[in-house]
């Protein structure tokens, strides 16, 4: 088999993943695009390992071993990533990464003075009413969680 076939397919899949990471807004869709990029790298590793095992008499099979390691690391990554996305969804009520702007420049410190901030804790803060206590404890809980 010509080596260009798997290499070109791998490049195309990787660029598809790049487009997904850049263009998607939902955090889980971004994670799916990251999975596509990891799979493109896996295909490259397997193809070059099969080539080198014959062409260069390479018996270490580093490509396939690294593919297995990449698959395991991808599984760990998707687990941690989904746990983070679920925690953000519980705190903010959204998994939209365009709305997570607490560390952005030019928006001021995250607090009740921020015009973006009443949107961020989601719906439960809206009927909060007279006291500004609820957003404060919400952000305090998030900070405690972020530092923990």
């Amino acid at each position: 088999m010509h080596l260009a076939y798997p290499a070109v397919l791998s490049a195309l899949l990787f660029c598809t993943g790049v487009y997904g990471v850049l263009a998607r807004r939902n955090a889980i869709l971004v994670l799916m695009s990251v999975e596509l990029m990891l799979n493109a790298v896996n295909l490259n590793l397997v193809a070059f390992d099969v080539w080198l095992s014959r062409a260069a008499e390479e018996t270490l099979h580093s490509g396939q071993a690294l593919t297995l390691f990449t698959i395991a690391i991808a599984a760990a990554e998707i687990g941690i990533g989904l746990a983070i996305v679920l925690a953000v969804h519980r705190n903010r009520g959204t998994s939209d990464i365009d709305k997570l702007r607490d560390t952005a420049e030019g928006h001021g410190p995250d607090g009740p003075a921020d015009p973006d901030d009443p949107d961020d804790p989601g719906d439960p803060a809206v009927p909060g009413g007279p006291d500004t206590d609820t957003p404060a404890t919400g952000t305090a809980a998030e900070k405690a969680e972020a530092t923990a």
Partner: protein
Amino acid sequence: MTLAAAVGHLAADSSTAAPAPHGFLSPTGVEIAFLLVGLVTFGAAVVTVTTRQLVHAALWLVVALGGLAVEYLLLTAEFIAWVQVLIYVGAVVVLILFGLMLTRAPIGRSPDADSGNRWAALAVAAAAAASLVWVVVDAFRTTWIDLDGPAAGSTDVTGASLFQNWVLPFEALSVLLLAALVGAIVLSRKAQPAATPAGSAPTRPDAANVPGGNGETGEHGRNGKTGESGKPSEHRESGGNGGNGEHRKTGENRESGKADEAGKAGKGDDR
């Protein structure tokens, strides 16, 4: 026996003489199969990153990952192919579907699946694809993979190399998986007390009834104040020990509020 040896010898001769007629315009059967499955895989990947229905994106991801498993089989990497089916199609996609359900993803079309910079993203991806494909084709124009003979990625070969040469990274990876497991559990459990304000938000009118009920006893200002100050702490504590809320309704408002605040401070120190 001798016939088989002769046939094998002939096959070996023909395989050594085979690299001469390689060419782009005379693809072998394996190449055609790889091309077709690759087209299906690439199309499924494109649909995955462009569809506006989130669950459909996850299901098209199954098609793309399964197509990649078939590509591994065509590259004679059998063990990797089945590991791909088991872990990606079996575990990762199920995890993604659970994540979509737990974040209450809309079932139908969601108009805001793509952000505003999708044209910039498309330009970046197209430029990267063009440059990568050009470089790869230019570099490996005259390189062929020899797929004849014993499989390069059977379970025998992969297991031998994995447990002869890669034992230490393998064990380190098991430690990493354990750390990821513990980390996922810790992340999910840390979100539990923080989820109680959002979860108990519908019970806020009930809590607002508490200062009103105490207003009948006469101390309007203080009770209202303590009720207001104690309200978030009650929300916070409602997950842990529900005894304080009932205790407050018996009328000892200020003391229970203080106890709540003490519990809140203790919890804050605990974090």
